[in-house]
């Protein structure tokens, strides 16, 4: 085997320019794919992070039927205190859960005493909410990065439109579950940067203030947002929680809860899927480049070495060994191309990270600096694809060489 390998490598160096060009083509393909996978992957992860860590959380639990009517923020579909207690009991026992935050979501009127408009609000426990969606404090562009009783965090577009400033007193008026209307005065404690996605333009008040506005005797929450210790386990944990809660039924015997992962709650999931699909297409493109270039080189190699093939066949080299010699050449081309591509790709990604050149806007969030990262698994998968395709591409010419009649090959001029 080592000798076949030695002959294969020497044959590659026999046509230095051609080998160099082929290796360069493969390496460039690998660099492009790595660059694309790294940048698009980082973009995707960053966006998912923005959505889950600043609004949605990794998954949410609602009362059955709430999500279908979520645009109306129906108070009559809130989770009852007993259900909340049961749910919290279950969540406290789950080792995968890092934090969770109960929320009362409601719509109301926002008045600065001069102007009035509508607003969507979340009543939350600030400590729990900040743990569940850790990017929320960073969205507070003005004011303290906290939320106290009697304070309200308002979205920046609302603040700008209503000319509300930090420290201003405003009034929130909301319709209660029984249809009556109640109001409460709040101090503007912070201005929130808008975020793209559901809930990105909601305001925040303390959950006990929300209960007061809504005249709730006992706490009824609209949803519980959950953050897991490992984002990679969202799908599995969603299934697990769903099955844990499947036994909880209403008096009518219908399921009491519904569990949704961020993928089911955010439209960005479809964009994330599109990015994944585009990555697959880019990989197919790489496969085509490698396939064509290696096949071309190997076919030329076979035609140029017909007499040589005749000689080695005549002196007793078995057809399988002749096949191996050519496949080994293709394999070596693939390995060299993949290694060089990986090294240069890593260097480029490193430079991009150090320079911070890649910036982008996501909705109203401007100049987000992308930090592309290379996943070793991606590098291994791409290298494995390149090497596998190189071997496959060299099979046809190699088979042709191994099936050559020695007598015809020896006569070849």
């Amino acid at each position, binding site marked *: 085997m080592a*000798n*076949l390998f030695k*002959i294969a490598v*020497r*044959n590659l160096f*026999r046509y230095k320019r051609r080998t160099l060009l082929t290796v360069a083509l493969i390496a460039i393909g690998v660099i492009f794919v790595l660059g694309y996978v790294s940048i698009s992957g980082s973009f995707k992860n960053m966006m998912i992070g923005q959505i889950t860590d600043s609004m949605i959380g990794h998954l949410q639990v609602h009362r059955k039927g709430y999500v279908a009517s979520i645009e109306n923020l129906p108070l009559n579909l809130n989770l009852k205190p007993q259900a909340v207690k049961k749910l919290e009991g279950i969540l406290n026992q789950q080792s995968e859960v890092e934090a969770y935050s109960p929320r009362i979501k409601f719509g109301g009127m926002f008045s600065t005493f001069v102007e009035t408009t509508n607003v969507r609000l979340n009543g939350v426990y600030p400590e729990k909410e900040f743990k569940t969606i850790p990017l929320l404090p960073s969205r507070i562009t003005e004011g303290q990065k906290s939320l106290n009783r009697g304070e309200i965090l308002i979205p920046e577009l609302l603040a700008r439109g209503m000319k509300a400033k930090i420290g201003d007193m405003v009034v929130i008026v909301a319709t209660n579950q029984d249809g009556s209307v109640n109001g409460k005065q709040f101090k503007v404690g912070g201005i929130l940067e808008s975020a793209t996605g559901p809930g990105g333009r909601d305001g925040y008040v303390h959950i006990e203030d929300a209960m007061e506005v809504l005249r709730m005797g006992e706490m009824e929450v609209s949803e519980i947002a959950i953050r897991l210790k490992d984002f990679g386990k969202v799908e599995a944990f969603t299934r697990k929680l769903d099955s844990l809660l499947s036994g909880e039924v209403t008096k009518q015997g219908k399921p009491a809860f519904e569990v949704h992962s961020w993928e089911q709650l955010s439209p960005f999931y479809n964009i994330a899927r599109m990015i994944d699909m585009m990555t697959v297409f880019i990989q197919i493109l790489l496969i085509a480049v490698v396939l064509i270039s290696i096949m071309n080189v190997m076919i030329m190699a076979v035609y140029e070495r017909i*007499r*040589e093939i*005749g*000689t*080695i*066949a*005549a*002196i*007793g*080299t*078995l*057809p*399988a*060994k002749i096949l191996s010699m050519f496949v080994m050449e293709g394999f070596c081309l693939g390995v060299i191309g993949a290694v060089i591509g990986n090294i240069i790709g890593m260097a480029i990604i490193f430079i991009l990270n150090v320079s911070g050149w890649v910036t982008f806007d996501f909705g109203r969030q401007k100049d987000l600096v992308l930090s592309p990262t290379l996943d070793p698994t991606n590098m291994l998968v791409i290298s494995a694809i390149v090497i596998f395709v190189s071997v496959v591409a060299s099979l046809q010419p190699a088979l042709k060489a191994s099936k050559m*009649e*020695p*007598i015809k090959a*020896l006569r070849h001029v």
Partner: protein
Amino acid sequence: MSLILAENISKDYQVVATKVSKDYGGGEVVVRALRGVSFEIEPASFVSFVGPSGSGKTTLLNLIGCLDKPTEGNLTVVGTDVLKLDRHESAQFRGDNLGFIFQDFNLIPVLTVYENIEYPLIIVKNIAAGERRKRVMAVLEAVGMADQNVARARVSDPKLVLADEPTANLDSKTAYTIINLMKKMRDELKSTFIFSTHDQRIVGEAEILYSLADGELVGKQVKGGRENG
């Protein structure tokens, strides 16, 4: 009974050809390169097939070398009915029993001289490194660097060595050197040597001379009192 006899006869000779014919082409245009050639060659013989171009020398050597198969007739080489061998078995047979001396040297360009000589021992016979080195050095000592072609043919101790016009492109001095090397190799290894030639300078060096004309065997000369058949 007759089958056992035929096998015994074959084993007494290195090559037994019985009414061997070879046709090329097909349909209306058929070229009869060999027409019912029969002969036997004893072990350790130094045999030459002579004849003008187109007489069938190369075709016959290709058949004996298992590089091609007869259209008709029987051919036994080193006790093996070569007609029954498939591609893989033919290659194996060539590697195990035959040595080739090519007219144009046919060395593998990416290998050094040493590696070219060593090649049959590695790729074909799979011999261990220490033994390989010993054998290559021994061959180089015997043959010298002058003819790597002969050295490569000799290194695997073949039972039968075939050379198609081995001196065609050589000057007289080198041609005699090659022939003498081949004879020395025959004497040392007791290998059978079969070569084709129309080079008058070396025709006289063969101990058994078969003459071919238009694909037929037209004569046989035995020198040095070695008569057979």
